[in-house]
């Protein structure tokens, strides 16, 4: 009898394969295949519109490396990621600590804070085009301080910080929810015991309990934040399209333009996307190792 699988488990595994089949067909066609195909394309001069396809080896990669534009885009993306991820993580944690109360008002206000998370990036970008425009709210607020009104998105100095501001504003609430979930998973007897032990001030609670206990959430939030930030596209495309004077130029704009505007450069675009993949991987793994050491 040993090792004989019975009718029940055969039925079970057959059912299981049927249930996962659609997922794997879709993943295969629209994730695994494109990912592999993308590497293949990156080794070719690939112009499907003019049927001009020939092998170029790693030339596409070399031209990406040589491109000052791509280097600028990567540097911009790294600056953007550093500023946005660190700020939004702190802000999300802070908001979560603020809203983690059993007040009626916290429920109502929290619902409003969450509005950007359901709004499309394009719609939000348009609202913020106006916000930063010459007649916009930012100038209206700054006017009493004697700051001359200008279109902030037309400024090489302020365009990128403006986009950063928009994204910090719109993604913090999303990560706040993750921190809230983490805070609520801390058993209340622990905090009661802490109160008896004299941990009463908000700072000591944060320092000795909330922060060390939510290391996993922080790791998750930071990694998701990095992955999202490096792939920044929608807001830049809608608000500045990389300008003015490449001040907001990011890798995804580079990749998109090469695939969409110049069909002859699709191979270059694929090569750039692979390099971006490598950058994301390296940062993610480095972050993970760094944060693992802080685990309780």
């Amino acid at each position, binding site marked *: 009898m040993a090792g004989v699988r019975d009718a029940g488990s055969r039925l079970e595994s057959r059912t299981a394969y049927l249930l996962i089949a659609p997922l794997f067909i879709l993943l295969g066609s629209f994730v695994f295949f494109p990912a592999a195909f993308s590497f293949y394309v990156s080794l070719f001069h690939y112009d499907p519109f003019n049927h001009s396809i020939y092998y170029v080896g790693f030339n596409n990669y070399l031209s990406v490396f040589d491109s000052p534009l791509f280097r600028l885009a990567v540097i911009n993306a790294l600056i953007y990621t550093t500023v946005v991820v660190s700020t939004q993580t702190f802000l999300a944690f802070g908001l979560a600590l603020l809203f983690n109360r059993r007040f009626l008002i916290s429920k109502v206000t929290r619902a409003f804070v969450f509005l950007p998370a359901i709004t499309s990036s394009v719609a939000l970008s348009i609202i913020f085009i106006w916000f930063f*425009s010459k007649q916009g709210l930012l100038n209206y607020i700054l006017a009493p301080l004697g700051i001359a009104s200008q279109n902030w998105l037309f400024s090489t100095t302020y365009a990128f910080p403006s986009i950063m501001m928009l994204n910090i504003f719109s993604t913090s609430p999303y990560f706040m929810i993750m921190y809230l979930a983490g805070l609520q998973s801390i058993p209340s007897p622990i905090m009661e015991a802490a109160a008896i032990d004299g941990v009463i001030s908000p700072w000591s609670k944060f320092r000795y309990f909330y922060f060390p206990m939510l290391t996993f959430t922080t790791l998750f939030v930071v990694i998701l934040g990095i992955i999202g930030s490096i792939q920044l596209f929608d807001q830049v495309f809608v608000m500045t399209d990389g300008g003015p004077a490449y001040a907001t130029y990011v890798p995804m704009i580079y990749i998109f333009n090469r*695939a969409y505007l110049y069909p002859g450069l699709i191979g270059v675009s694929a090569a750039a996307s692979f390099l971006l993949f490598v950058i994301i991987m390296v940062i993610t793994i480095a972050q993970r190792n760094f944060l693992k050491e802080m685990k309780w």
Partner: protein
Amino acid sequence: MVTPSELFRYAIHKFRHLLRGNGGTEELEINRMSLPRKLLLEAAMIMVAVVYVVPFYWMVLKATRISILANFPPDLNPFSRTSFNNFINNFHQVWSFGNFPTWYFNSILVSSVVVTTSVMVGAMAGYAFARLKFRGRNILFYVVLGTLMIPFPVILIASYVFMVDIGWINSYQGLILPQIASAVNVFLMRQYFLTIPSEIEDAAKIDGLRPWQIFYRISAPLAKPAFAASAIYTFIGSWNNFLWPLLEAQTVNYWTLPLALNFFKGANGTQIYWNQMMMADILALIPTFIIYMIFERYFIQGISLTGTKG
């Protein structure tokens, strides 16, 4: 803004303390937050909420104006009679602009098909990974989770080339199919199915249900919150998706709303029609807003389910 009942309770407490004339506030300060501190926190919450509401308020305000120029001092009331008339007027202009109804229809079509299929596919796979024993279960599950690590740009270009090659550029299937497979939905569903006591499924086996019957008669009905969460999630993601349709839909007939909104931005040359842009924004926001209002709880739950350990 303290809730009246809390204010009342607090007042009674204070009153008793004064009557007795001895120290009794300590308990209040240790076990319950002091009123000034609570007020301070509530004020902070309201402030944050205001910061988050203002852009949206301005969006509504702009959509209720005819003049494309800002007036100083601005009229801040979006609920006046003229505002309403302007709003209707703007609505007509936006709705008759280009192919706006078609774009709206496309968005609804694409999102609803993506939601139904993605949630079904995710629930089926999530259930198999949570409850059924089969060879390679763990490896395959890690493969699914691994897709989360593949950045979208890597897939994007090849998918685009692939669509060009098979002639699916400018097609509904080209818009829809790549959006269905979602590791997040699989993960979310699996997490939820794991919380259903397995004895219930044992009982169902003894009652004569086959594994797929247990899935659709017992476990799936019990996982309604997870279905709701992943449906809302997927809907909002698909409704707001910009980059894929931007590559895929190259003729206006296949545009979805985000493409339309982006188009509005530059539709009138150098002149910017804020009122129409904001109106279009509002129209695009309405479905997600309604769904969010109704199912806020599940939306939050969905993020929480994916964001905690598992």
